[in-house]
Structures are given as C-alpha cells and as structure tokens.
C-alpha cells in the first residue's frame, strides 16, 4: 500500500514493462486485470500478466518486431490487447491504438501514416476491415487476433491467433538462452523511447499521431497516482476507447504505476451492469454519462409509490443542503449530520450501490462543461467527483482539482509539476511532465503547437479564478472582445444557458459589439410539458416559441445567467442585454449545426442577419424569411416576425458573495 513514487525512489522504473516486472515480483499474486467472459469474471494476477506479456512479446519479435516498429492495437478493452500494448513496449516498439469503430478508410489512414507493421486486433469484425484495406498497405505484414469466432476458414498465411502465437512462444521460452535474451530487452528500454502513439480525434483536419515517450508517460502517471493516492488496492473498469488518451492514461498508465487492477467489461452494452459488479474505486466518465444516469434514476423513481418518492426527494434535499459541505469537512450542525446519516442509510448508499458507485474514492469528469446541479447531485451523495482538464499532447492531465477544493465551473489548478500560463490573448499554455515529443512525421504541425520557450498551446481560452483554479471558456479562436474590451467567450455564455432544461441551443453574439445578445431555441419536450401544465395551447414550435409567457420564462433564465456572470469579475461586462427566441429549431440539415450538433455561429449570423441587426438596433421585433429543408428533403420558406426582448443587467457584485444558487 505504498504510493508510486515512494516505491521507486531512484526512478529506475522509467518504462511500463519495467513496472510490469516490478509488480510481478513485488505483488505477483495481486490482481492486475480482469475480464468478464461467458458470464464469469476471470482474473489475471500481475505475475500471470507478466508471463502473458512476455510470451506475446516473444511472439511479436518472432514476427519481426523490433525497436521503433509500430504495432496497431484495434478493438474493445480486452486483456489480450492491453498485453499487446505492453508487449510492444517490451520490445521498444510503439503501440498505436486505433478506434475500434473507425471505418476501414480511417483505419487505413492511420495504419499507413503510422507505418504499422503488425496489427493486433480483437475479432473478425476488425480482421475483415483490415483485410479489406490490406492491399493498400504493403508495410503491414501480419495480423494477430484475439477471438477466433468466424475466422477459422480464413487464410492463415499472415493471420495468427494471439493464443497460438503465445503458446508457441512459451515453448520457445523454455529454452533459457532465448528467455534471457528476451528478458534483457526490458532493461534495454529507455526513458526516451517512444512509448505510444495516440491519434488525435481529427475534428480539425486529418488526425495526427501524438508521440509520447516512456519516461515522460511514467513520470506523469507517477504524479497523479501520488496526487490521488492510488495504490494496489485500487480497481477500475476499463471501458473507455483504447485509442483515447483517457483510457491509456487512467487505466493503463496509472494502474501500471499504482499496481492496481483494471477490469474489462463483458461488452460495450453491459458496462453499467459490470460497473455494479466490480464496484470500482476510481472512475472517469464524461458529463453526459452522469447526466443520463441521473435521468434514468429520476425516471425510474417516478414509478415508485408516492411515499417512497417523498422519502427519496426529502433526503435528496437534505443532501443538496449539507452533502457537499460534509464531504469537504466544512462546519455543519449536528442535527444536519444525523439527518444526512439517515439519508445515507435509506437513500444515498442504496442509490450508489445500484449505480455501481459504492466504492468510489475518486471520480473525474472532463471533456465538456458540467452543470452545477448535475455535478452537485453526485457530490452531495458523498461521491468524490472532481474535474480535470487535459489533452492528448499533455498525456492527459493539465489541471485537476484536489480533494476538498472542488467547483463545478472550474477545472482546477495546474496538475502536479505542470507549468500553466495564459497567453496575452487568453490562450491556455502548459508545460507538463507527460508532454508529447512530436506529431509523428509532421514537424510543421509540431512547431505550430509549441511556443518558442517550449510551452504547448492548447487552443483553449481560459481565465484564472481568485483561488488559482483555471476556468475554460471556449476555443481561443472563438473568443473575442466587446468594444469596451470586455472578454467575450460565446461558448461559456451559451453553456450557462444550456444548463437550463428549457433551453436547447444558444448562439451568442458580442465580438466587436457594444453588448452581448443571444438567439436561442427552446427545448420543446420540457417547455411543451410546462405549457401543458400551465394550460397554454400551441400548434407548432414556431407558435410556442413566440408565446409571451415562454418569453417570460426564458427571460427568467437569462436574468439568472446575468446574475451568475455579474459575480465573475472578468465576465460581468458580458451580460446578456437582449435576446430572442428563434422561430425554428436549428438543424444540421439546414447547415446551422454541425453533424455533431455544434452551433455554426458564423453561418447562423449570415442566415439570420436581419435578426442580428434587430438585436443591436434597438427595435422590438425583426422580420425574417429563411429557407428551410423539411425531413423529406423538400424546401420551404419560413417567414416570421420575431420579438426581441431587452433585459436590465445586474450590477457587478462583490466577489465575496456566496457562489451557490439558492438550494
């Protein structure tokens, strides 16, 4: 139960295979990896894992893999694939995980770009994809697969079962000279060997291979293992995509340093059930997972009897008021503590148990902004949910929140040993222990991503809060300024509004303007529900969107956002002065959203120029006519007069005012 750094004071363990061997020697009987297969959890200890990786490393070497060669890893989270990563590293080769759902062409791009020699894949699906593109990839020599199903009749000239390759290797390794030769490979591994290549998602142009070195990867993992006090008692569910930095860091790197155990789910569909069975102590999920869990709990609770619902909501109220304070060790009256303890007994503990969260010591969320209410819900139950901010180029952690200093609207101070600064234009820049070496074969892009003095540009704009925590606002290129110089971060404002269930989409304007305005879409499901309850009849989205009481409802939300903005020194000037509700829902078919449902601000400003003009010329309404595409592909014209509502803004408040919204 020692922490990572104290276990390796000299820093001799500078590659993952060295850690693997270390654990096999020191805690050989502790579980290293699990897999649920055919309904049963199978467990491999560190000693067994070591032996498997060793056999696989020998197999890869027999197939011609050596220093610097690339090995693609394709599939779901499976022990064999994790072993494949370690086996490649054993030989000082470079594993290149590829997203399992990548279509053949995307896969071809990565395999070709990375000069992959051997691909280690999960099953027939992946083998089929690779065979479909194999003709284009002359440098790809062999394919190894884990699951044999459906592959028996395939031509096995260049196709091998991992199990068979390992069996052959075990026989060969019985020979002491061969064994000693292979074992010596681990010691030849060096800190500046390339440890892994992770491809960026490629939302902006072709994806790039981010090269991370062994020494830096280990150093980064060691820091955060220390930070969150991970030990060999820790356990987590390895369900994130192998090719994503989060999986390689949180599951592979951290567990290889801490000596803990990662459990591979039975299938992608069973993650929730597997989570419950494993009861991880460390957990990561993006905000939308937490959101959908909460929704599911609430919906199922609706089916309970009135009394049970009352008990449930009563104790959730207690948790909301005192839960976070109790967790953060703040003063709380005794009666509240007792009340909370009762809640733990009746509601919180059983609820966490159902969700599989009973044993969680540390949980993180990241990737997008998380709503205060959602975030607080889990924390108030006594779950230590925190935020981090990271990047593939940093080997994940740039910032992270410490226990007891957690906020919903920030991502924490710099992670251990990370140097963090803001460029004059507000861009976040960092230097970190895990910092990437380069983009593979792309010195130009590498140079573009770095500053002269060796900091990495994140492309995100942020600000520091008074307590030293970083707040991410938006992509740096989207951040502008009002005429008076106030920082204008559209996404930051939009997100604040979108946390209200009644609001679906928001587009904020303000760059080079006198003040901020927004156009928004209401969420028909929840506003419709509200309308029903309040006896408001409507025939279409357009009709309800124009209803005066809906305007009043939305105005209330906007005012609330203004109050929240007023509390932030740098944002107080960016309050929303005027808004309107769009008469149609923004739609990807009309080019207003991207296919991933992000608003295209520029395009919308052009399309609805009349509305934008109306927002700024002080008129009470504006007329538009826009072409719309119906679901069946027909086109029509939407003509409407849209009301524009003006709002009083809030005087900036003293920064010592309480942050929380009314409970």
């Amino acid at each position, binding site marked *: 139960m020692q922490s990572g750094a104290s276990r390796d004071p000299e820093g001799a363990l500078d590659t993952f295979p060295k850690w693997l061997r270390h654990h096999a020697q020191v805690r050989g009987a502790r579980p290293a990896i699990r897999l649920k297969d055919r*309904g049963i959890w199978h467990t491999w200890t560190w000693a067994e894992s070591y032996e498997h990786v060793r056999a696989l490393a020998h197999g890869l070497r027999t197939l011609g893999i050596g220093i610097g060669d690339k090995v693609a890893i394709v599939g779901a989270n499976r022990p064999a694939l994790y072993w494949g990563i370690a086996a490649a590293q054993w030989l000082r080769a470079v594993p290149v995980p590829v997203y399992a759902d990548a279509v053949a062409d995307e896969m071809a791009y990565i395999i070709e770009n990375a000069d992959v020699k051997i691909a280690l894949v999960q099953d027939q699906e992946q083998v089929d994809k690779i065979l479909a593109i194999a003709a284009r990839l002359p440098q790809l020599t062999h394919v190894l697969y884990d699951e044999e199903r*459906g592959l028996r009749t395939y031509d096995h000239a260049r196709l091998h079962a991992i199990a068979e390759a390992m069996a052959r290797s075990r026989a060969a390794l019985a020979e002491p000279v061969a064994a000693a030769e292979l074992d010596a490979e681990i010691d030849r591994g060096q800190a500046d060997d390339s440890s892994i290549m992770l491809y960026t998602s490629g939302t902006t142009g072709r994806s790039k291979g981010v090269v991370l070195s062994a020494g830096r990867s280990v150093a980064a993992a060691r820091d955060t293992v220390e930070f969150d006090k991970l030990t060999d008692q820790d356990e987590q569910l390895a369900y994130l995509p192998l090719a994503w930095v989060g999986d390689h860091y949180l599951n592979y790197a951290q567990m290889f340093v801490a000596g803990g155990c990662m459990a591979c789910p039975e*299938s992608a569909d069973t993650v929730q059930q597997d989570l419950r069975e494993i009861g991880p102590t460390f957990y990561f999920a993006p905000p939308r997972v937490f959101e959908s869990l909460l929704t599911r709990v609430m919906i199922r609770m609706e089916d309970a009897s009135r009394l049970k619902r009352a008990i449930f909501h009563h104790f959730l109220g207690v948790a909301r008021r005192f839960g976070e304070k109790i967790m953060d060790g703040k003063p709380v009256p005794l009666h509240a503590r007792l009340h909370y303890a009762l809640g733990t007994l009746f509601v919180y503990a059983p609820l966490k148990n159902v969700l599989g969260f009973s044993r969680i010591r540390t949980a993180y969320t990241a990737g997008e902004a998380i709503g205060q209410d959602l975030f607080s819900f889990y924390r108030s139950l006594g779950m230590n949910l925190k935020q981090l901010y990271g990047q593939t180029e940093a080997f994940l952690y740039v910032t992270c929140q410490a226990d007891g200093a957690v906020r919903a609207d920030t991502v924490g101070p710099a992670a251990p040993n990370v140097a963090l600064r803001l460029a004059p234009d507000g861009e976040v820049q960092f230097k970190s222990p895990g910092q990437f070496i380069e983009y593979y074969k792309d010195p130009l892009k590498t140079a573009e991503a770095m500053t002269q003095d060796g900091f990495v540009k994140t492309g995100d704009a942020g600000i520091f809060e008074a307590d030293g925590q970083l707040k991410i606002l938006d992509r740096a290129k989207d951040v502008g300024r009002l005429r008076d110089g106030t920082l204008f971060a559209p996404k930051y404002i939009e997100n604040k509004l979108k946390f209200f269930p009644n609001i679906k989409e928001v587009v904020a304007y303000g760059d080079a303007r006198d003040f901020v305005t927004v156009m928004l879409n209401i969420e028909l499901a929840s506003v419709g529900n509200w309308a029903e309850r309040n006896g408001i009849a409507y025939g279409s989205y357009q009709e309800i969107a124009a209803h005066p009481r809906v305007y009043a409802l939305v105005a209330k939300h906007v005012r609330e956002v203004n109050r929240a903005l007023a509390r932030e020194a740098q944002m107080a000037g960016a309050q929303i002065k005027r808004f309107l509700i769009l008469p149609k829902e923004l739609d990807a078919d009309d080019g207003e959203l991207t296919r991933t449902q992000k608003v295209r601000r520029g395009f919308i400003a052009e399309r609805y120029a009349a509305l934008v003009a109306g927002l700024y010329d002080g008129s009470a309404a504006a007329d538009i006519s826009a072409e719309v595409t119906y679901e069946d592909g027909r086109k029509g014209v939407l003509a409407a007069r849209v009301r524009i509502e003006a709002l009083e803004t809030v005087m900036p408040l003293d920064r010592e005012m309480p942050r929380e919204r009314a409970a």
Partner: protein
Amino acid sequence: MSSAALPPAAEAGEILLVVENVSLSFGGVRAIRDVSFDVRRGEIRAIIGPNGAGKTSMLNVINGFYHPQAGRITYKGATRRRMRPHQAAAQGIARTFQNVALFKGMTTLDNILAGRTLRMHKSFFWQLWRYGPAFAEEIEHRKYCEEIIDFLEIERIRKELVGRLPYGLQKRVELGRALAMQPDLLLLDEPMAGMNLEEKEDMSRFILDVNAEFGTTIALIEHDIGVVMDLSDRIVVLDYGNKIADGKPDEVRSDQAVIDAYLGVVH
C-alpha cells in the same frame, strides 16, 4: 480469405433428411401435394413460397407435429410414416416459431437453459441436493448456455425477463433456446418476420454463423426472398402445396414458375 465462402460441409454433405412424396390435407384443403426434397448435412436449406403455399405445414410435418396422409420421411437413415414431436426433439431436431413462443415470465438465461432440458440426465434423486452430480451437470449446462449468449451477443439481457424485450431480441433468444439443444437439424419458421432491416441483417449474420461455427444443418422458411437468396445453399419453392422449383439460389431466381408464383399469375 473471404468470409463469404461456403461452409465446408455444404457442397458434398451426406443426406440428413429426405422428404418423399409427402401429401397433407386438412379436410378438403390440400396443404401439401406430393412434395419431395432432401436436406444435406451442413447446408442451409430454405423453403419459400407465397402466403398459404404450405411452408409452415411442411415444417410441422418434418418435426412430427402434423402427420402426412401419404409419403415418407427419412431422417438420419431411419424412415417412418409418423414421428412425434418429442421423438423429433430427442433425435436432434430443434425449431423456432413464426410467432415467438418463449416463456415470457422467465429470464433470457432461464429460457435458454430450458432448451437444455432434454440433455439433463441426472435423476430426481440427485437433484434433491444442491451439491453433487446434478450440480456439476447444471454447471456444464450453464457453461454451454453462456457460449450461446456470447455467440448471440445478448449478454446485456441475460438476466432480463423475456416478455419485456423488444421483438427482435426475443427472436434472438428463441434462436438461442433452439441452439441450446445442440440440434443436428434446426428448423426456423420465418426467423425474420416482423423485423426491421437492421434486425434482419443481424439475424442473417447469426444464421450464417450458427451454420459455420456449430456446423448445424438449417432448414428455414422465409418470406423475404432477397434474404433467402443471400443465405441459402439450396431452395425449395412451394406454391399452393406443390413444389414448383428446387435448386441453388441462382437457378431458382431465374425459374419461370417461381417468377410467376411471386408475381401472381392466375392459376
């Protein structure tokens, strides 16, 4: 290296089932008239035809539910006029139904385990104790069922009540229960009826995989002629109880009688 290659046994398999000159009538309705065909071991054999052609009756004759007035059925070399359903089951014929016939109040796992009933041999005496031979036997059966669950990718619904599942999944569970019998001959009655395109594709994949992985001989009835053409090794076409064609998909496709039957030429 193609996955679309024919299963090895399909081409030259020995004959598993022979239907000879079978006729079946219900009162004055002649459902099947003098039909003969055979099923080879390891193949996927389809029986197709328009509505009311006698397809389901044919399946019911094969598994002994109906007794034909005339004709013979030879299964695994033994010829008999009538075979009872339980004999058919004992001899390795399993089937699924056009309308799902599962135990709706039981879980997926229990439904599939039910398919193992005929293979549970330990007597009531042993079943009285938790531990002992009956326990060991049950573990073996559970293992086999888990293989099927893995195979059909229904891990997520292992413990769910079947009645609550969507139709496509119920069909899959039903296939699982039939597979649990480890049948030599699997009869599928419209396995894709009422499914959407994606479910149909999944089911086709599973049928091909069952055939390739377990070597199970499959006789299936299907309405969707496109699906059948892709799946089957050989096809029998029935129309108004008569066999109007028999052969490989390409031969059947270009057969004038078949085209007429499907396009509805007046008889």
